[in-house]
């Protein structure tokens, strides 16, 4: 190796390691602090933590379910359709990914709040309000997390050769049958990867939820909100925030392992 190459390699290795350490230190610090805090295990069994965990788990799952139901048709449309609005729809679906979550929260408020574009007429006609409900939590999570599923699903459908679908039609299969028997089985690693990403993003959602849904134990206080409340001085305190963070870190690690296992089988996703 010439000395040029050696210098280049050394620089790359140094930068890579330095950046790696930057990523490692916060999590090592969190784990260390959590394991040295005597109250960690006691705090993990308090009702506030249990409620936050349960709420986070079931709202994220509901969000994923809705994303599957509503997002799959959109993803298929984006993958196959050739009409003029496709690019615009594509950009619109991608918007929440680049938007700061707090902005998403403000946007939801201006749309579905009691004086909102949609919220005000709905309250006038039916008396129904969105704010402070668990539904608002799911809406906030759906807005920020569904795009991740749609993107993954779209790329999965694009990878399925339309020829297979055409052949199925010529053999007499209906569109629905073709979709479930031909398209989905070929696209399923991408769909699964999208589900995992969507679920993880929903679990971590904070800004939009805080602004749109409020913060009440058992109803709207998801895990990230419980962490914030703990830091704001709730009875959980800093030790509680650290304990909660430990749980979320473990969840994130599991998700990461799952995603990598599934995405390695999906074209264009890992």
């Amino acid at each position, binding site marked *: 190796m010439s*000395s*040029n190459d050696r*210098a*280049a390699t*050394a*620089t790359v290795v*140094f*930068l890579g390691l*330095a950046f790696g350490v930057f990523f490692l230190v916060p999590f090592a610090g969190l784990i260390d602090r959590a394991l040295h805090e005597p109250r960690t295990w006691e705090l993990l069994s308090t009702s506030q933590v249990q409620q936050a965990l349960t709420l986070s788990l079931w709202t994220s799952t509901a969000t994923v379910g809705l994303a599957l139901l509503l997002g799959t048709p959109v993803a298929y449309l984006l993958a196959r359709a050739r009409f003029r609005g496709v690019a615009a729809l594509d950009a619109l679906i991608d918007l929440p990914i680049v938007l700061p979550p707090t902005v998403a929260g403000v946007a939801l*408020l201006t749309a579905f*709040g*009691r*004086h909102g574009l949609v919220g005000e007429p709905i309250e006038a006609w039916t008396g129904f*309000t969105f*704010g*402070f409900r668990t539904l608002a939590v799911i809406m906030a999570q759906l807005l920020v997390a569904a795009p991740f599923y749609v993107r993954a699903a779209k790329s999965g459908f694009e990878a399925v050769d339309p020829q297979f679908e055409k052949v199925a039609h010529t053999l007499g299969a209906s569109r629905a049958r073709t979709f479930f028997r031909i398209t989905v089985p070929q696209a399923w690693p991408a769909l699964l990867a999208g589900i995992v990403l969507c679920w993880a993003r929903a679990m971590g959602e*904070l800004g939009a939820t*805080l602004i749109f849904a*409020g*913060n*009440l*134990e058992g109803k*709207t*206080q998801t895990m990230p909100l419980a962490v*914030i*409340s703990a*830091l*704001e*001085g*709730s*009875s959980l*305190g*800093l030790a509680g925030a650290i304990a909660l963070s430990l749980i979320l870190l473990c969840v994130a690690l599991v998700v990461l392992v799952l995603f990598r296992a599934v995405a390695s089988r999906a074209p264009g996703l890992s």
Partner: protein
Amino acid sequence: MKSLLRFRLLAVGLFAAPALIFAACGNDDSPPNTSAAPSLTVAARSSATAVASPTKAPLTGDITVFAAASLTDTFKEAGKAFEKANPGTKVAFNFASSSALATQINEGAPADVFASADSVQMQVVTDKGNATAPALFATNLPVVVVPKSASPVQSFSDLAKPGTRLVLAGPEVPIGKYARDIFINASKAGSGISPDFSDRVLANLKSNEANVRAVLTKVQLGEADAGIVYSTDASVAANDVKVIQIPTQYNVIATYPIAALKGAKNASTARAWVVFILGADGQAILAKYGFGKPQ
């Protein structure tokens, strides 16, 4: 040869860059903020020249004041007055709930002064040895606020009406604690509204907000039917909210302590700030915004 030299210069630059960045960061003195509460760090500059007291050395340097969210407007004005009276000083603020601030101070956030909205959170700080000898500098009165447009809440007892959307600050936030104490006062045998008043009111609770200003915002937006904030906050939002007084026999008086912190980088200016707030000038500004005298 030329490309080797260029490459070596680049490598040195890349190694040196992190070192330079760390050096630059060492001069950054804005406080790390671990809470999501809307907190503002303001460094207003002194614009007028004023004569420093001829009998002692003029104060200089920067201080960071951690203050309860309800003191936002008042302290910002006091900061400008302090800088005018002491050219060469700069006052920066971190406004958040007193409970969040106490947590940050105990975790080592670089603060010089702590002004809390109740003695409980000040005690959290003094118990850890981070402050000594706090002094009361103001009092405040909790009130009920409702949106100016129609609200089902027209009186204090309406808070127990089923279906009311009530928003409070979290139970550790001073105003949140004061509110819950008020509801308990209104549930006492004899003078209270009813023994289950507090339970019925808390059944209407829809959200525990991070600080008093977040409660105010929910009421201003009309998302909440009612909230409990300080009378000083209600005046700030007079255009959007209506005030409903809490009956005196149930109400509590909020007492605000202030203390210079042990870890203050600029102890003399920190003490001077405390003296300023306790003195005639500071008290006049507090009174202007509706705060009461310390008792």
